[in-house]
């Protein structure tokens, strides 16, 4: 059995080459509908969290250090998502949605930045809460276009 394997080095080399190529190629293909959908769902989830935190600020029902640190962390995640989406090459049929998603991610990062700057300001908190809700709706609308299912 061992000797038969030794006589067929080409098969092992082919398998290894196939494995390596698939790993390399997986990193440089088009941004698929599924990948974009996952990214936009993350944005929607971040916006929902932002809305809850901003609600705490608006009601004066939170601790400003908590709101600031959470806004910084979640804002960083939104920024990272924006960069990821902007860097990716979208497949032609989702290009429009990708662009919309990048814009949503950018706006979301800006809102978190505002929350980070004014974590104890109830007026700002209420404004950010409202905008976060709108951003979430926009993200959900993109998901709906991508999946063909109605927005939640």
């Amino acid at each position: 059995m061992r000797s038969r394997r030794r006589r067929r080095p080409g098969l092992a080399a082919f398998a290894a080459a196939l494995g390596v190529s698939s790993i390399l190629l997986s990193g440089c293909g088009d941004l698929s509908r599924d990948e974009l959908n996952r990214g936009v769902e993350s944005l929607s989830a971040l916006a929902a969290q932002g809305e809850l935190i901003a609600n705490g600020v608006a009601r004066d029902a939170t601790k400003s250090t908590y709101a600031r640190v959470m806004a910084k962390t979640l804002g960083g995640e939104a920024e990272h998502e924006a960069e990821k989406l902007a860097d990716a090459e979208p497949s032609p049929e989702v290009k429009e949605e990708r662009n919309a998603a990048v814009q949503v991610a950018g706006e979301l990062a800006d809102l978190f930045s505002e929350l980070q700057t004014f974590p104890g300001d109830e007026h700002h908190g209420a404004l950010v809460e409202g905008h976060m809700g709108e951003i979430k709706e926009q993200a959900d609308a993109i998901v709906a276009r991508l999946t063909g299912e109605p927005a939640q």
Partner: protein
Amino acid sequence: VKAILKIALGIIAALGGFLDIGDLVFNTQAGALFRYDLLWAVVLGTIGIAVYAEMSGRVAAVTRRPVFDVIRMRLGFGLGLVALVASTIVNLLTIAAELGGLAIILQLLFDAEFSLFVVLAAIGLVVVVALLPFGGIERVFGYCGLIVIVFVATAIHQQPDWNDVARGFVPSLSTSWLYLYFVVGVFAAALMPYEVHFYSSGAVEERWDESSLKENRLNAAVGYALGGLLACALVVVSGYLFHPLGVRPDDLGTVALPAQGAFGETGLLLALGGMMFCVGGAAIDSSFSASYNLAQFLGWEWGRYRGPKKAPRFTFSWLVFLFLAMLIVLTGVNPVEITEYSVVFAVVALPMTYLPVLMIAGDRSFMGEHANGLISRTLGWIYFALIVVLAIAAVPLLLATNGGGG
């Protein structure tokens, strides 16, 4: 009255010390993703840890031998060494996760550089351990950790549909890899090996004997049952608030949000404070466990009650484990990610921890009249079979779900 008070205090300590960062993360994420559907897995894990903690406490009380002593004795040097290496890696990851979690909570409360809080948290733990006796450490963190009962109050305040909640306690399986991954995660988070290592070594530290068996039984049954209630509350509050919004709680700070929603700043502070004591207590438990295991395996003098002079290698190894964990967290790796990996890899090490306990606890030549009865034996073997299945499934599920990322 004194005996009743002692038992009550033990229960409270077990209850408050039940939750660690793994429970906080996995139960909250389980609720956010699957609403109340995984409550049954929390109950399953809670019964499992109660069964094995009772067994390991009983073995320690009757034979004066803690778990790792038993492991070495039953598995021999070779397999025992494998168990030691596996549990040490898992313990180190767990200490790092708990220390990182503690630093995150401190950052949320005081807003300064994360790395500063990592160092302060490590120093704080050293100071606490240096100043307090073993029982004091256990009780301070146990009682103060009890503040997380705010999550039970939050669940009641939210007024969820209790029929839906009740349906979550009925076991159900799904073909979704992510669901299965969280079944493993929620179950394993309750059964982390360090918990029984610490529990049984703690029994030796507190000089339990056969007269302590009643206390052991009540601690395990009532303390862990109430601890399971806290874990269920996390699933419920998260399922109620996060699931409909599609929130994925990947940050430890998010865990406290439902309490803020229900009770404002007071709720938030109680949640963060309770989490701080739970996670801090677990950091001490897991770091002690790592040193207990090493010392017991190598035959060193060990125990907090002996002090650094009488157990220098034990004390030094404890400091080294804490230092290494601090270095891991300071590399910038996300503590929540460390938690997920430590919990899943712990599943793989679970059989090597629990099989020797099960065998010794059932051995009449060692345990005499206190050997496992029918119920303990049956439950022990059922859980062991379950643990083996999950140990086989854990890593493939981790890979298939991209570490729970879907």
